[in-house]
């Protein structure tokens, strides 16, 4: 009888030797005359356990991890194929507390299914959202999205239903749906995991969006730093066209939706939606002034719905289970679940999908188990390179758009990067300016010039040259950038800088000379 073994092909698992593990299982099984089928899945998001291998048994799947190629022989000898006992045996993956405690709505299939199989996707509940949507009219679909309370998961948190409604009402021969998959924030990998592990969830969400807004063409703008996601998406789209879930006649509805994936070229600013559209049109990724908003004049001047991967992938669940089922999660005006990404210096990093309202401390301590180095947590950056650095006394802040804003921070794309007590916050503040200087599109002066002046001024502070006066210059500069920049790149760079200065003032005094990072 054939045994099915699941080995992830997620980039993290590959980076930790998953291909060599798969080859070793195949070779070892062959030598033993075992009939083994290896299915390459995405990751469940328990990233400290990768590569996490699972085997199908009559009692359900049994997981082992972290598995190195050198462990495979011993695992096969211990009866891996039957779920046998071994030091690396983790039991049923869904019973592992890290996973069992989560609210997996959007990520329910990630790490479970064969990512490029339409059949597997449908067997695990896929396309029920689209089927439900096809029974509604456009207004009905948009109403469901609006009533779910879903807000744009890219970082800005704009109500998705309002955006969808604007595009739906816009009159045009050709409208577009564009997925912002330019996940450039450090500490974020939810989009990557979804595209590598359950791309049909994204495809389904975008198809629903297309049908709701009357857009027959869609693009996924993917960052080039994700070569595995690119291959998986291309394969999934091709299989989707063959299976009739994409193309001229989606699920036999006589409605069309054509989808293509496009590669960015290493520019962080292209995660800003107007810059992304310029890039998609084949131009430099220069930010556009708004208005006009992309919902009315977007790609090639046509009405365009631009949403993040996590926004689109929340939609199939909402349509299948109803707006209320989704809105029952969360708090205040932040409804539903957030894909939290726990990263940096952390013992148990990974993907934690949880209702809004969980505190940073619960995430870092209960899920994460503290730092990887074993040293105390000193600073936590939330929401990417433009997010604030929080000290210990702010870690009881709940993850909620308004609560984070009240502490001068942001949820962003849900990335949490943990630093231990060896971190030099003056260096981190300098890096925030340096990153902005490298990645600024150059259109507006506060960002283009401000970032470079910021690096220079921080260098003076770090060198101990009149620190008080120079920090006053930094504060002034940050005010100009916040108030005068065209987009969030220049507008939010002051957030990591000022939070570092405010919460960790001791790192900005008593400085000696330091080496300056190259770039």
């Amino acid at each position, binding site marked *: 009888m054939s045994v099915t073994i699941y080995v992830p092909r997620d980039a993290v698992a590959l*980076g*930790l030797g998953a291909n060599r593990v798969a080859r070793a299982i195949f070779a070892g099984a062959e030598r033993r005359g075992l009939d083994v089928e290896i299915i390459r899945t995405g990751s469940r998001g328990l*990233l400290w356990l990768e590569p996490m291998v699972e085997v199908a048994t009559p009692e359900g799947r049994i997981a082992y991890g972290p598995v190195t190629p050198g462990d495979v022989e011993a695992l096969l000898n211990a009866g891996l194929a039957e779920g046998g006992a071994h030091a690396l045996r983790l039991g049923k993956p869904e019973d592992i507390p890290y996973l069992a405690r989560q609210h997996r709505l959007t990520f329910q299939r990630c790490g479970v299914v064969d990512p490029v199989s339409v059949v597997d996707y449908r067997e695990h509940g896929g396309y029920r959202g689209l089927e439900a949507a096809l029974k509604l009219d456009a207004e009905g679909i948009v109403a469901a999205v609006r009533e779910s309370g879903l807000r744009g998961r890219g970082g800005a948190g704009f109500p998705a239903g309002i955006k969808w409604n604007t595009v739906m009402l816009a009159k045009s021969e050709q409208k577009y749906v564009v997925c912002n998959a330019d996940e450039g924030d450090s500490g974020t990998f939810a989009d990557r995991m979804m595209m590598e592990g359950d791309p049909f969830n994204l495809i389904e969400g975008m198809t629903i969006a297309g049908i709701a807004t009357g857009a027959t063409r869609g693009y996924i703008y993917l960052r080039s730093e994700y070569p595995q996601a690119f291959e998986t998406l291309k394969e999934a789209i091709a299989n989707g066209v063959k299976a009739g879930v994409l193309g001229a006649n989606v699920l036999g509805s006589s409605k069309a939706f054509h989808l293509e994936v496009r*590669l960015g*070229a290493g520019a962080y600013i292209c995660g800003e939606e107007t810059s992304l559209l310029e*890039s998609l049109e084949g131009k430099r990724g220069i930010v556009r002034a708004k208005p006009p908003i992309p919902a009315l004049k977007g790609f090639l001047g046509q009405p365009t719905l631009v949403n993040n991967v996590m926004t689109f992938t929340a939609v199939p669940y909402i349509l299948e289970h109803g707006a209320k089922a989704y809105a029952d999660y969360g708090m205040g005006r932040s409804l539903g679940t957030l894909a939290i990404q726990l990263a940096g*210096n952390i013992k148990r990093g*990974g993907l934690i999908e949880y209702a809004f309202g969980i505190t940073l401390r619960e995430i870092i301590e209960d899920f994460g188990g503290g730092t990887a180095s074993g040293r105390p947590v000193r600073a936590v950056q939330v929401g990417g390179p433009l997010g604030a650095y929080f000290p210990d006394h702010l870690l009881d802040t709940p993850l909620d758009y308004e609560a984070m804003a009240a502490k001068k921070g942001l949820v962003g794309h849900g990335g949490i990067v943990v630093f231990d007590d060896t971190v030099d916050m003056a260096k981190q503040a300098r890096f925030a300016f340096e990153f902005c200087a490298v990645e600024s599109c150059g259109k507006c002066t506060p960002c283009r010039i401000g970032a470079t002046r910021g690096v220079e001024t921080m260098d003076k502070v770090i060198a101990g040259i009149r620190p008080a006066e120079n920090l006053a210059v930094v504060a002034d500069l940050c005010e100009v950038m916040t108030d005068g920049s065209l987009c969030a790149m220049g507008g939010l760079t002051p957030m990591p800088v000022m939070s570092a200065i405010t919460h960790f003032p001791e790192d900005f005094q008593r400085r000696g000379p330091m080496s300056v*990072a190259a770039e």
Partner: protein
Amino acid sequence: MQREPWSEARATAIIAEHVHLEGATLPILHALRENFGYVDEGAVPLIADALNVSRAEIHGCITFYHDFRRAPGGRHHVKLCRAEACQAMGSDALHAEILAGWGIDWHETTADGRVTVDPVYCLGLCANGPGALVDEMPVARLTRDGLQAALTEVSR
């Protein structure tokens, strides 16, 4: 990775394959980069003609994006993540060691032409840092030995 030497005829053919796309510039530049390992100056007028835009627009586009090299690089391309999550795991010191070991700086190629190294800001390996991409193969929990092993693997 095996690369073809620059050829105007081949470039013209590659451009023609993509010219029908909406917003064809980036797909064309990526295809040229993949085929030749870089975007040759000679491609600029060819793309401009095919898309009916000015050479300046194509030049501007090539120089805006980090991905498009304008000269051939090494046989292998290493991207080391310099972003915050990797910094929290000591990437700065590791990168300094790696670069010193090769005797080069960012964006440079080793003397034997084997490796070009570029900084990158996030590869999405943030819970298992430091991260790197060797050609297109991800490397998590990067060490100097791990990088050498990855280079050996992609050389096979």
